[in-house]
C-alpha cells in the first residue's frame, strides 16, 4: 500500500482503486481477481468441472444412460448436482474476518466467480453431451445446474463454504427419489421436462436468491472448519 492510499478523513478517497481507469488500476484489478481466484481454488474447481463433463461424455458414449424411462434422468442430474457442489465449495474463504474487513470488492468478486463458474459448468456439460442424445437437452442442463448452484450458494451462506456441498447433495437425493416415483412439482425441477416454465422459474428464482445471498454476505465461516 502506498502513502497515497492512506488519506485523512477530510477529502478522503474511499476506494483503493481510483475512479478513472488507468493502466495501473487495471493491472491492480486483474491482480486482485487473480489472487481471489487462486484463494478460492478456482483452477482446481475447473478441473473437477471438466471431470464431470468427461464422465457425462463417457456415460453417453458407452450407453450407461438408459434410452427411456425415469432412469434416463438419474446420471445427468447426479453430475449436475456434482458441478453445483463444486461451485458452492469455491465460496469457502481461508482468510475470514481480515478479508471481510478490508476487501471492498469482495461482493463483486463473489458474484462474478459464482456466475462465471456456473456458465462454465453449463458449457462444459453441454460440450460433454455434444453430438449425442442427452435426455432433456441443453435447456434442462441450464435449468438444473443454475437451480442447484443456487441451492449450493444458499447452503454456503447458511452452513459454511466448506460444507456447502451438503445442500445440492440433499437436493440430489430428493430429486432421484422424485424421478423414480414420478412425483411432479416445479420445486423439484429435474423431474419436469425442459419446456415446463414453472419449473424453470423456480430454478431461476433459487439461483438469483443464492447469488444475491452469497454476494451480500458471503459464505458463513464456522469455527470447526
Amino acid at each position, binding site marked *: 500500500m502506498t502513502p497515497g492510499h492512506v488519506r485523512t478523513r477530510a477529502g478522503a478517497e474511499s476506494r483503493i482503486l481510483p475512479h478513472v481507469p488507468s493502466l495501473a488500476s487495471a493491472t491492480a484489478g486483474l491482480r486482485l481477481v487473480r489472487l481471489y481466484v487462486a484463494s478460492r*481454488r478456482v483452477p482446481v474447481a475447473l478441473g473437477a468441472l471438466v471431470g464431470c463433463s468427461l464422465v457425462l461424455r463417457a456415460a453417453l458414449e458407452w450407453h450407461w444412460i438408459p434410452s427411456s424411462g425415469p432412469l434416463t434422468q438419474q446420471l445427468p442430474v447426479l453430475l449436475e448436482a456434482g458441478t453445483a457442489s463444486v461451485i458452492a465449495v469455491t465460496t469457502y474463504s481461508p482468510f475470514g474476518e481480515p478479508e471481510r474487513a478490508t476487501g471492498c470488492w469482495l461482493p463483486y468478486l463473489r458474484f462474478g466467480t459464482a456466475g462465471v463458474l456456473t456458465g462454465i459448468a453449463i458449457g462444459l456439460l453441454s460440450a460433454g453431451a455434444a453430438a449425442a442424445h442427452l435426455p432433456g437437452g441443453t435447456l434442462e442442463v441450464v435449468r438444473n445446474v443454475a437451480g442447484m448452484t443456487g441451492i449450493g450458494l444458499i447452503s454456503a451462506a447458511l452452513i459454511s463454504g466448506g460444507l456447502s456441498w451438503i445442500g445440492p447433495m*440433499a437436493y440430489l437425493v430428493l430429486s432421484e427419489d422424485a424421478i423414480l416415483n414420478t412425483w411432479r412439482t416445479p420445486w423439484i425441477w429435474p423431474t419436469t421436462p425442459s419446456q415446463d416454465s414453472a419449473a424453470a422459474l423456480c430454478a431461476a428464482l433459487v439461483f438469483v436468491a443464492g447469488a444475491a445471498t452469497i454476494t451480500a454476505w458471503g459464505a458463513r465461516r464456522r469455527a470447526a472448519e
Partner: protein
Amino acid sequence: MTSVTLPLGSKPQRIRPMRRARLLRLELRHSIMILLLPLLGALFYFDAFHKAVGYPPFWFVRSSVILHELVPDVSLFAAGVAAWTGSREGRRETVDLVTMAARPRWATALASFAGTTIWTLAAFLGCVAVLYGFTATQASWGGPPWWPVAAGAAVLCAFCALGFAAGLLLPSRFTAPLAALVTFLVLIVAFRVVLNESHPSFALLSPMNSVPPGDAGVFFHYFPDLYIVQIMFFAGIVVVVLGGLGLVTASGSRIVSRTAAVVTALGLAAVGTGMGLAGTARVEANGVVSPAVHDAASDWPITYTPVCQQGAIPVCVHPAFRAYLPDLVAALNPLINQFAGLPGAPVRVEQSSSSTTLELSVAVSSTEIGTLVGASASLTGNPPVLRLALTEVPSQPEPPSSQSLGVEQGAFVDAFIGPAGGTLGDPAQAAIEAALLHNAGSLPSPAAQAANRFAGLAPSVQRAWLATHLRALRSGHIALARIP
C-alpha cells in the same frame, strides 16, 4: 544455578485406555455428522420410509428398502463427511504437528474415522429402528430380518473408510463433494450398469438389488448367502483401507508398518474371498445361492397352519396374509359363482408361494426374479384346487370389493379359461376372460383406462398431442393423468 539430572533414556509411556476413550469422545463431540442427523432423518422419512409403507406389511419386503434406499442415501453423506474429516489436518496444515505427537498418527486417524463412522451407524440404526418399529405394529407374522441390517452397516463402513482415506491422502476443499459424488456414481453406474452388463455375478455385490416379490421370506427362508458375501466384501474393503492408512502414516515406525501390512493383507483376503464367492453365486427363486456358504437347512419350506374363510368355496392363505383374506374372498366370490357347477371348477383356493409356481419364476436379469402378471395361479389335482400366488398386494387391506386384488382376479380367470403354463391365451380366450372379469366388477387398470381415453381421440388430436409431448413421454415424464 541448579543442576538437573536428566535420564539418558526415557521409558515409553503406555497410553491408558481412558486416554484413548477421551480421544474418541472428543472426535464424537466434534463430528460434522451430528449436524447432518436431522437432514438424514428427513431424507429417510421422505425416501425410504415413504417407500416402505407403500409395500405390504411383510418383514422381508419392507426390509428391502434398507439396502435399496436407506444405505445409498446415507452413504453419500457418510463418504463426504468422512472425506471432510480425513482432510482436516491437511487443510489446516497441521500434519507435521500430529505426526510428531506422542501417539502414532494412525491411532489419531483411526479415532477420527471411528467418530464419523459411529455417528453414521447411529443414524442408520435409528432409521432401521423406526422402520422395524412401524412394521411391527402392522405385521401379523414373522420377525425382523437382521442380515440386511448387517450388510447395510458393512456398506456404510466401507464408504466411510474410502471417503476418509480420500480426504487424508488428497486434502482439499473439493475432496468431500467429490467423494460424495463418486459414491453415488459407484452405486448407480459401476454396480447397476457397468457390472450388470459385463460381469453379472459381481453385480450381486451391489447393495442396490431388486425389491423381492411380496411373499419372499414367507413360505421359504430367504437365503442369507448374498448378505454374507456382501458383508465379507465390504468389511474387507474397510480393513484394507484402514490398513493402507497405517502404511501411509507409519512415519518410519516398524511396529506400525508391520501391523498395518498384516491388517491390509487380511482385508485383501476378505475382499478376494467375497469377489470369488460372488463369482460362483447363482440366482434362484428364493434368493441367491452361494455354494460355499449355503446352509442346506434353509432350503426347507417354513411350516405354517393356513388361515381359511368359507366363501362360495374355502379360501385359505398363509397367516402372514391373514389381513387380506376377507378382501380376497370378496374379490374371488363373484368369479367362483360364475364357474360353479362347470367341469373342472375349483373346490378350494389355496395360496401358494410364487417361487414354487414354475411359470412365475422368470429371470429378468442375473439380479432380478420377475413375475408374469396374470399367470400367478394354476389348477391342479382332482378334485381341482386353485393354487394362487399373492405377489402383488396393496400396503394396507382395503375395503372388500375394491379393485386392490384385481391381479388375483385376473390370475383366477386366466388359470380356468386360459392355456396351461402361464402363456398368453388366444384372442377368443382373452375376450371371454375380459367378459367374465367385467361381470365380476373388475375394472380395467388405470393404464387401460388412459389407453381407452386416448384411443377415443381424433387422429389429428392424437398426432398434435404426440408432437408436443413425445420427448417427455419417451423420457418417462408424463403421468397417466396427463394423457388426454
